[in-house]
């Protein structure tokens, strides 16, 4: 599942590009201005994507990495 890593592009796009389109106060989300909630949302989505990458990346379960290096 090496393609899972591309999921991590999402928070970069969301924060670096998307913020331009989310720059407003209303509607408040969880009491926060929309633009702040937007950034927070992408941090959470990104962490979830990262956790998915971590669990599916074979390098984290195999005792030897793909280059044959050890993980000691």
């Amino acid at each position: 599942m090496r393609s899972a890593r591309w999921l991590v592009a999402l928070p970069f796009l969301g924060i670096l590009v998307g913020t331009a389109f989310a720059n407003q106060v209303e509607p408040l989300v969880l009491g926060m201005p929309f633009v702040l909630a937007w950034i927070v949302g992408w941090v959470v989505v990104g962490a979830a994507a990262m956790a998915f990458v971590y669990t599916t990346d074979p390098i984290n379960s195999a005792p030897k990495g793909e280059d044959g290096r050890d993980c000691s």
Partner: protein
Amino acid sequence: MNAALLVIGLATLGALALGLAAHRGVRMTLEQWTVAGRGFGGLLVFLLTAGEIYTTFTFLGGSGWAYGRGAPTFYILAYGSLAYFMSYWLLPPIWRYAKRERLLSQPHFFSRKYDSPWLGVLVAAVGVVALAPYLVLQFQGLGIIVSIASYGSISPTAAIWIGAATVTIYVMISGMHGVAWNAAVKDALILVVVVFLGVYLPVHYYGGFGEMFRAIDAAKPGFLVFKPTGQSVLWFQSTVLLTALGFFMWPQMFSAVLTSKREQTFRRNAALLPLYQLILLFAFFCGFAAILKVPGLTGTLADQALLRLSVQTFDPWFVGVIGAAGVMTALVPGSIILVSAATLLANDVLRPLRPELSDSTIALTMRGLVPLIALLAVYFTLNNPPTLVALLLMGYAFITQLFPAVLCSLLPRNPMTKYGAAAGIVVGVVVVAFVTETKIGFADMLPFLPARVGDVNVGFAALILNVVAAMLVSQATRPAPVAATSASR
């Protein structure tokens, strides 16, 4: 002597005791002092790499910017997260290489990767230059915290001296070991304090978060979003990208990475640390809560917003707890920076110049440099530096100039030659220094570009020139001929 001062004093003594106790049972060799023998497990590495964000900068600077600037403070939340996402791929190869080559520092990494001791010296110099505003930031924060939380009975100047002395003593004796345990205590304390304040203050004064933000929006329209010009969305984008790329370029961050026992740790932390970042939200809430309750703090005074509101709200003993947490957020990063700066100067500048010196002489020099660096930082701190966030952004603008060379060196076939790397770094740093010194914006330099370009972060623009210079010089010096030195500018 009031209750607040007593609590802060006890916390400072506690930090000192913990820092001193940490070196017991460890022979302080060079490798132990600088990277703790590469023996730290997951939790300590987590705290060391995370502790980087929980400094006096976030505690006071983050809330101070929320208070003084509004939306631009949100960048602080974004850049760390993006940096941690990248760390999944960035840190393991750096760590592996460093372990195999027994590297102790970041300039070491450069000089080995590019096979050029002089590049190492250059990188060490850039590191020290970038660390200076960062250390000043910690000391300045310390002065603010202690003087306000002691209700004015200790002057900021006295507080800065006491804090600098505390850090100097335990860093000289315990090195990186002293830092680690204090980092654990600091993170626990700041976590509890910031979350409590960030929830309590808005609810107590406004009845809730939504109510607070609506009140601010009504009083100061446009304050909670990025502005059309100046600190606009473009500023946000370029600043987040710049600081995210620079995040792991700090020499002390490199050192924190090298303390790890296993590379797995970084990949796991890449998912956990961004969530840990969200605690910053509560620091913002404190700053926002202060806007309508302690109005009128302008310029650098904005950094005092959180503490002023606390003094106005709580009993002295609790102000003491807040102050103690604040002191820890300045002491711990302050000591990490001191270890790094001393290592840079002794191991990465002095050693290449005088290769005949023994390990023990270098180790001794390192410890001897600690008080000198601390003194220098105290001097700058007492000479009216700008706001905390401005200081950090200055440091970031410098340190991120190292990123292109690090990234290229990790590629299977490095497209950059040592001359290219050096040229890029020199160009980037000179541009940043020039713009910071002369305060000339890019709009002034490049008048033919649309006016909005002026919002781009200075460091980011310098980074682009850096890459261009590095690529041009690398092209020119590609086969690494003997006569290439003349092309290195």
